[in-house]
């Protein structure tokens, strides 16, 4: 797992209001993934499903009662629990460097 320390640190310093993890994004907002703060095997599975650094992710509906949320990523929809989404760290600037697919 590649961990971009600078970007993560910058994000924490510069944007007190900007969402830092995927779990903090509201429905319809979008963010660009920076890195996955998860054990290697789970991170690999998520990357296979499209959660790659640099990828744009848009949260969609969540299950009623605060269950897992559906995320639109790389052309498909994948459901994640909040606890997992909170380990997906976003880039500080979500506009501009989106790698369109």
């Amino acid at each position, binding site marked *: 797992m590649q961990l971009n320390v600078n970007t993560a640190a910058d994000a924490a310093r510069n944007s007190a209001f900007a969402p830092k993890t995927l779990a903090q994004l509201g429905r319809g907002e979008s963010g660009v993934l920076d890195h996955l703060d998860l054990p290697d095997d789970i991170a690999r*599975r998520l990357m296979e499903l499209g959660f790659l650094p640099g990828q744009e992710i848009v949260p969609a509906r969540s299950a009623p009662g*605060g269950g*897992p949320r559906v995320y639109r990523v790389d052309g498909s929809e994948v459901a994640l629990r909040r606890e997992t989404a909170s380990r997906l760290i976003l880039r500080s600037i979500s506009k501009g460097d989106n790698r369109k697919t």
Partner: protein
Amino acid sequence: MSDCHDCGNCAVVAGPLPAGRSSARSHVVAIIGPPNSGKSTLFNRLTGLRQKVANFPGVTVEQRVGRARTRGVREVILVDLPGVYSLNPRSEDEQVTRDVLAGEMPGIPKPDAVLLILDCTNLGRHLVLAAPILALKLPTLVILNMADDLASRGGKVDTAELAMQLGAPVALISAAKGQGVEKVFQFMEGTAGGTASLSAPKVELPVLQDIPKCRQWAQQVGYGAAYRAPAPPLWTRRLDAIFLHPVAGIAIFAVVVAAVFQTIFSLAKPIMDGLQALIETSGHWIEGALPDSVIRSLLVDGVWHGVGSVIVFLPQILLLFLFIGILEDSGYLARAALIADRSMAKFGLQGKSFIPLLSAYACAVPAIMATRTIESKRDRLATILIAPLMTCSARLPVYTLIIAAFIPQHPLLGPLLGTQAGALLGLYVLGFAAAIVTAKVLKSSVLKSERTPFVLEMPPYRMPTLRSLGIRLYDRSKIFLHRAGTVILTVAIVLWVLLHLPLHNGKAPEIGQSFAGMIGHAAEPVIKPLGFNWKIGIGLISSLAAREVIVGTLGTIYSVEGTEDSAGLRHALQNELSPGGAVALLIFFAFAMQCMSTVAVVRRETGGWKWPAIQFVYMTFLAYVCALATNEVVGSGVLKVIARL
């Protein structure tokens, strides 16, 4: 196998290959693709073999083998594999795929060619799998499935250019509609004849372990092939807005469940009554056509009533499978797993356990095999151990019989739910409750583990096809009738013999004096506290083979006794059981593990006798204690109060 060269259009084999004999000459082709890309639909198209398909990632958990309907000298053996995103396995079903490809799966020869099937509505991501597959250097056809979806949503791809980029032939098809499938046959006939080969890919393959590099490679290839991704599936988003709505979503979930149970009862009833009448009329007809003899008694009382009383339940079981089929194929089931995840997490499980548990409503055996998609070993074991507590379809005949005999029909929630359907729903809830409480106990003691993340790809909603639903029902009928023709038939014959021996002065004894009666009487002291008499005891013992056998057994017993009339078993049971005993019998069947197939599959999946033994003892104990308590409570007059309401 050697004598069917010229009729390659009809031959189909099920189950594992007869190893050795065919591997020398036959051409083995593996079907590989990401989950939910349509491998099994294509497999059905190519073989005609009835393989279970659903709109849910991870339906195929074991390799399936079938003979392709190709025209050629060599026979082509197709292997359908569980879906994978890569060749780095994380769960048991992905391990199966890796092993078969590496030629390490016993009984399956190493594949000679590969059909790589990708969902072309999401080609960018699905192409990632092409890298490790092409690196195997086997003749490969890249199949772009769901061509109809791609076109209708405004996407496109240049297949000729894609073939150049990949260095492998490409076919754009719709497996569900059968469009373009002839190209797949041509490819297989070509590789079987030794003509196809791979050319060098235009874009060099990436380092396989590096997922971002692989994704970039796929991006580049897709770009080269002028791939335009289709518009997002608008209908799926609209439907999700309803089905995942905070209020409407939950309400729909509840209505769907209630409606399924109500329909199983009300819709199936006239069909079942008709079937019942048919079996009885034909029984009388056979009785009239044959001279009075031991053979006639065996045929009519033993076989006809024994097997017939179980076959009556076929329409009901098919209706249940039809509903589960619609839920699976439409894509709603994945949303149901999503809705259920939060609740499942409270009991130490996860949404993925919900899928096997839901299919356990049909049958515990495929459910236990479906647990292979669960990555965590402990979560998987917990799911295996609780799956048989879910109300499988074999319990349905027992439940229906007793409910119809003992629960008066009243409307409960207007026309939506009656008392009988309500009682059935209650039994389903009871089984579910027992399962999740057991899971909680297991997961907070012997199977304690870290919470594993829930990751589930949401398939788009699709209209279930009549073809796919038809295949399911056909499959189910075959399995059910096969059981009726083997297990239940055997038990019926053995039982008839036990009921007619030992002979007294050359004549069959009274039931009480027969061998079966003796066995029942011997069991009576143990089951009397539950409110069961010795006749029910015979039924319970025979149902150790399979639950629904008890219905056949009771059918045979009352037929031999001569109490069988048009109202049949129901009236006989009303005389035989107290209300307390009847409810206790329902509870006993809700919990007891009377199914040899389940014991066998748990032994195979857990690799030993330890867990099935623990499971059997636990469930029997639970069944006994709860039935005992029920008989005590209901026997003290609670039911009379309810009946008055």
